[in-house]
């Protein structure tokens, strides 16, 4: 015991050290995170808090904000366009989450199959649309959807059918936008699902097969439960991005026809930067934030680990 006490005591003494040295050592991690958090504070955390405070003011941009209490939130309650925007957003996001995830999962299952050839090639090729911006994909899809000169219209014309003007018809425009989003991101989610599928133990699958399980039963009872965390990740991510949809409707439809594709984030943009009602826009944005947070929590509860 006395032999061992020597070095241990020395280490202890060293780690205590004189006060100046101890302080300097304690400061090290803070110095390392300082640059990141300086920017994070100015461009993310600060504005997020400030936005909350501004949501209780009337703020026209040039002049200073004037406190108005809960007025913005009360006004929002009777703002029909805001509810239209929220409704569109929820509906389009739900459609997007379901279709994108199912398509990606099906694609990943197919790519994961033991007999699949050219797996790498397909994985890469399906990911390609994700490398371009939403703006560019929207611009390109304009020439797919356009009523008279679009690719779909031209193809339909070949068989003598006159399709609708997909983006100018309030019943089809939301679907057209959602489908375009699925096109752009399906490969991305498929890659994540595929990585999850490949992490599922092959031993477990083999064991199930030896016990006489059919291929479908293996997928249903071994593979799918194994990718639950990955599915949660994809669903939460798709939900957030779906609820924050802006670029595509902004470019393809400007929220129209009527307000059929007006999303919540577009509405915030209009209020804030076209009508310069920045306080009101901040309030609308905070309502959307709250909705996003609540939905993410609900998804975690439903899809998350059962044993927690």
């Amino acid at each position, binding site marked *: 015991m006395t032999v061992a006490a020597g070095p241990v005591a020395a280490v202890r003494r060293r780690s205590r050290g004189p006060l100046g040295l101890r302080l300097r050592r304690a400061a*090290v*991690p803070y110095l*390392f*995170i300082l*640059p*990141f*958090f300086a*920017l*994070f504070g*100015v*461009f*993310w*955390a*600060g504005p997020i808090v*400030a*936005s909350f405070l501004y949501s209780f003011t009337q*703020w026209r941009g040039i002049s200073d904000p004037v406190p108005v209490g809960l007025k913005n939130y009360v006004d929002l309650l009777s703002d029909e366009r805001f509810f239209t925007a929220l409704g569109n957003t929820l509906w389009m996001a739900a459609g997007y989450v379901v279709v994108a995830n199912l398509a990606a999962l099906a*694609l990943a299952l197919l790519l994961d*199959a033991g*007999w699949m*050839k050219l797996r790498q090639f*397909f994985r890469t*090729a*399906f*990911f*390609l649309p994700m*490398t371009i*911006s939403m703006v*560019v994909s929207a*611009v*390109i*899809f*304009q*020439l797919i959807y356009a009523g*008279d000169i679009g690719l779909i219209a031209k193809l339909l*014309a070949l068989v003598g059918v006159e399709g609708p003007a997909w983006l100018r018809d309030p019943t089809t425009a939301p679907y057209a936008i959602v489908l375009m989003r699925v*096109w752009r991101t*399906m490969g991305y989610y498929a*890659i994540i699902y595929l*990585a*999850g599928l490949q*992490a599922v133990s092959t031993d477990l699958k083999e064991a199930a097969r030896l016990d006489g399980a059919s*291929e479908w039963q293996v997928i249903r009872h071994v593979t799918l439960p194994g990718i639950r*965390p990955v599915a949660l990740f994809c669903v939460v991510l798709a939900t957030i991005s779906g*609820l*924050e949809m*802006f670029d595509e409707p*902004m*470019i393809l439809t400007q929220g129209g026809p009527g307000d059929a594709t007006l999303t919540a*984030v577009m509405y*915030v*943009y209009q209020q*804030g*930067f076209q009508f310069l009602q*920045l306080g009101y826009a*901040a309030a609308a*944005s*905070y309502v959307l*934030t709250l909705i996003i*947070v609540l939905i993410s929590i609900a998804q975690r509860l439903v899809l998350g680990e059962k044993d927690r």
Partner: protein
Amino acid sequence: MTGRLFARRPQDPPPVAQMLGLVALTGLLGLVLMPWIWALVSSFKPRAEIMSTGFLPSVWIVDNYVALFRDTLYLRWLFNSAVVSVSAAVLGMALSAMAGYAFAKFRFVGREVLFWIVIASVSIPPFTTVIPLFGWLAKLQMLNTYPVLILPFAASAFGLFMMRQYMSTLPDELIEAARIDGCGEFRLFLTIIVPLARPALGTVGILIFISSWNSFIWPLVFMRSNEMFTLPVGIAGLNSEQMAEYGLVMAAAIVSCIPMLTIFFLMQKQIIAGLTRGAVKS
């Protein structure tokens, strides 16, 4: 490898089904690539032919590309996008490596809370931050400047998350050994940690580059003149101003895809590793 195209293990579906699967995949792939092909073809069409019923141009013309570089500020937007995205990526790599290292290898008061705050910020919708910043930056007369598009992207939550993840896999013994040798903390970071973290750094750099390159809302709000637009805002502008100039817009779209596609093909491995790492481990 048996050499047969459809080698079959007991659990595999019959060759016909495998064949159908491949055909379906190829068909789907055709659908996925179609919009690009259509945009490419359209960019070589004279204006009148975009409006007509045919599919292929009767004569392939490059007028749209000539007009793009001659009559618009396209090269300037391309330059702006490059400056902003490269700067954000380089700065972002440095900041997230430093912060990620501290979060992975030090214990300090506030560590959990700070990390949690950064991760939570990801779900905040875009205009929540943009609204106050617009007011502040307007007062500081900083609208229409590059830093406004560089600095926010350099403080990337995703980058921090990924670097912390990677740094925590580095062995503690290595760091301890360097300290016992009397290596200063910052030199230790630069000479030992950074070289080891190179793969993760590459991934973080690329992902920040992509998100900055593709970003629309920030430059839309903060860049107030044509000369300061980035590609997405410039292209969106062409698209709304000259409604009928589809050929020109398609040429603009096609050219803007080239840098990203090049980067993707060169660095595919890092990109895909980066995208899946976070998902499978969290």
